[in-house]
């Protein structure tokens, strides 16, 4: 099973998903992220999915769940770099990812978090 690395930049946790996410990997990511949030007290999480070509309903739901978990640690989650095709698929699946904020790219995601702070 491949693990997704989590890097800390200031008060933000940066997660860049560069692999085709398997179900176990995303569950593992959720656990790792919860541990990391508790340990660092980060205020924001940026999940970069630029490299993801396929997001199914399970992964979509897990991403929304990560957003809800982060909120419990008073951290805001921003999903960045979603491809148009992925956005259309998620909309067709009826997943609007409430609880997760979105931005076009990592830079705008950081702006969004910093604007809040």
């Amino acid at each position: 099973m491949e693990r997704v690395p989590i890097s800390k930049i200031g008060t933000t946790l940066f997660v860049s998903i560069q692999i085709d996410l398997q179900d176990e990997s995303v569950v593992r990511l959720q656990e790792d992220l919860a541990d990391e949030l508790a340990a660092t007290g980060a205020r924001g999480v940026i999940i970069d999915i630029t490299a993801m070509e396929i997001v199914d309903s399970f992964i979509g739901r897990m991403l929304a769940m990560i957003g809800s978990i982060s909120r419990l640690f008073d951290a805001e989650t921003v999903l960045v770099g979603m491809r148009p095709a992925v956005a259309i698929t998620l909309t067709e699946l009826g997943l609007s990812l409430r609880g997760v904020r979105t931005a076009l790219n990592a830079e705008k995601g950081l702006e969004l978090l910093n604007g809040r702070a």
Partner: protein
Amino acid sequence: MDVDSSQGRMAAYMRDHQDKVVGRWSEIVAAGLRGRSSAAEVRRELDDLYVLVLRAMSGADDQALGELRAALAELSRSRARNGFTPTETALGVFALKDAVYELVADAADLVHEYLVFSRMMDDLGLLTFETYATAREQIIADQAEAMLELSTPVIRLWDGVIAVPLVGTLDSARTQLVMEKLLETLVATGADHAVLDITGVPTVDTEVAQHLLKTVSAARLLGAECIVSGIRPQVAQTIVSLGIEFGDIATKATLADALAHALDRRGQHLAKEGPA
């Protein structure tokens, strides 16, 4: 008397009177087309067709019938494209029956042959009709596709603000296309606000609203905020009486209002030049 030999006799008879029959045939067709094709042009077309008809009837070679059908199909297609009516197109074939009938009316011994010939012409007439209909359907399909392409421009209104003026009814196919173009433009330009202008959408029912909401939520997934503008009074009344909820999506009366709202959200303001 079997069909083949009767066809052969008829073909021989018609070949002997080729000039007369084609002459009369062109006359009837030219009259039916009311001068949209010149007499010489009609004559040339029919001369070629007549030769093919005779070859098909005499049964000398197998390809003749295929060639005849292909020639007729081509003729009907060009007629369909040039805006002739179906009657005018089918007339081209059926008129040959009249022309030949005038010729054989006096010859009582050719009645059976004429009937066989007549049946063949009916078949060919149906073929022209079918080809005509197919050609027209093709034209309609092409036009629909062209309209789809034409009706979905995405415009850059301001730095970071794009607009999609929607014109025409918003069905599933259109929505898909609009969504794809909008999302691609969002990614390409890095815009964070999109205005969906529905001034040109004649009616907004639950289905259209559903499609709009889908587009908005797809854009949101990319991190862009959508504003729906161009809501006309009647449309507003329909939306309310149908109980359609736009939720937290900003709606504005005009594109100008939407642009002002987007700029406001981006923290940009327009100011008049000159002394205050």
